[in-house]
């Protein structure tokens, strides 16, 4: 089943946020970049195909299915199954500490809330020190505090050179990105900097609902309630 049609773009580092309504193909796009779905065409990351770029990228799906009996530390171990040594352990703990959830290492998944699981998975993904981070709905299930923490971390990472590709429902983050891709029904409707791409008309058409810009700096878009 072909979900994406005629999608073509180039992104040169920094954050890329992919937005679009449900079913527009955001997840498929991310999975294609991660090399999990078959695609016709070319995906190149730093000149390499996704299969060859595996060791440098981490993928965090929207609905991970983690083994309920697994412990936090084991998740980190599994993510880093390829790397010998214990360097990842240190990174893992540091990221968990940044998110404020160090205690998760010894708890089983089934005792964690969805938000905690997500934080755990993100920390594990980061412990691999990837150059490309693919996140599908990273802020889902997170309360505002944790959302802020995660976004802060992502912003720092972006500044320090990690490329981040993020699919989200939250237009707020789209305006903070370096590049925005707008998908609608499997087609790439717009691609460019947020200033170029994000305007009321485009968004209202894509989301089939009236959207108004209610603030300019930082730009904030909200669906109209009328």
């Amino acid at each position, binding site marked *: 089943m072909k979900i994406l049609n005629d999608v073509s773009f180039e992104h040169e580092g920094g954050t890329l946020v992919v937005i679009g309504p449900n079913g527009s193909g955001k997840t498929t796009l991310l*999975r294609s970049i991660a090399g999990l779905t078959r695609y016709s065409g070319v995906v190149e990351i730093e000149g390499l195909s996704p299969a060859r770029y*595996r060791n440098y990228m981490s993928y*965090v*799906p929207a609905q991970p*299915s983690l*083994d*309920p009996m697994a*412990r936090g530390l084991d998740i980190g*171990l599994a993510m880093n199954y390829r790397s010998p040594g214990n360097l990842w352990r240190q990174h893992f703990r540091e990221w968990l500490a940044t998110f404020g959830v160090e205690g998760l290492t010894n708890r089983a998944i089934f005792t964690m809330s969805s938000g905690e699981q997500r934080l755990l998975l993100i920390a594990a993904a980061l412990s691999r020190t990837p150059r490309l981070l693919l996140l599908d709905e990273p802020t889902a299930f997170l309360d505002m505090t944790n959302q802020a923490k995660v976004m802060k971390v992502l912003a720092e990472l972006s500044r320090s050179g990690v490329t981040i590709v993020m699919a989200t429902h939250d237009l707020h983050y789209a305006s903070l990105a370096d590049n925005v891709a707008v998908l609608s029904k499997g087609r790439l409707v717009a691609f460019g900097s947020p200033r170029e791409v994000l305007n009321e008309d485009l968004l209202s058409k894509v989301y089939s609902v009236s959207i108004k810009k209610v603030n300019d700096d930082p730009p904030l878009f909200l669906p109209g309630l009328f």
Partner: protein
Amino acid sequence: MKARGLTWALLPALLLAACLASVSVGPFSKVGIVQVFEALSGRGAPSTYLYILSYRLMRTAAAIVIGVSLASAGASLQYTLRNPLVDPYLAGVSSGALLGVTLMIYLGHTGFLELYVAALAGGLATLAAVTLISLLAGGGASTFLITGVAASYVLTGVTMFLMIGLGPKLPGALYWMFGSVAFVTRPLLLRSAAVAALSIAGIATLTRYINTFMLGDDVAKSLGVRTGLLRTTVFALASSATSAVVAMSGPVGFIGLVSPWLARRVYGSSFSLALPAAAMIGATLAVASDIAARLILYPSEAPLTAVTSVFGAPLLVYILLKSRGESPW
């Protein structure tokens, strides 16, 4: 769980104790650890002791092979499929082995070696068929499970047809089904142990990859793990170890199911820890069951599968009840 560190010392000790008991216990006793030393030191125990000692050592070794193999196979399958209901017979290998044995007896070949070969061939053929069919049908985990279950039923049905025509030879086939280490001969033990050891060594080398199953298929694949191939490989290795054991002593149930369970309770989710723990638990259970099988119906022997099930199942229920709420299962 807090018992972890202590358990690492406890498990081997338990196993050793079980082995000693196995060698010393039995109605024709006055054979035990003392006699072992006597014999080895050349003082020469009376030869009756030597016969019985040798026999008991063989049984104990066979029980350990069975326990280690089934538990390791069960552990690898439970971790791969993330399903606690899975046991090493899921590919239908025991039904295939039983069919092979029954067919041999039906055709009049009742020599022990012939039965061994038939059981091994039956089990491995079933594994090959189930793997092939499930690969053709898509290759997912559930496909394999369903195909294995279907194969089990079909083969058992055919076996029942054959059994009706066996007449007085029926007990031979039926009792093979009950499982026993009483008739293990050294060449068979060595053969089965070799096959099982190779298979389990294979699984052990895949430990790192098996660990990634806990992340879910998506994330695992994104890390470069070929989940479909890995699953199939684990099935094949686990089932061949199981086949080897079933050919040697008939199908012994429950150990492959409960040992990984127990290991998981204590060691959580890391396969690299759970595998050796499950193996030791399985070996201890098997040896203990064999001792019980020898003593309960003296002078006859109880079927090994009956002992493991009748004593094992309540043990499992007890553990379940005791650890209510500590697990999502």
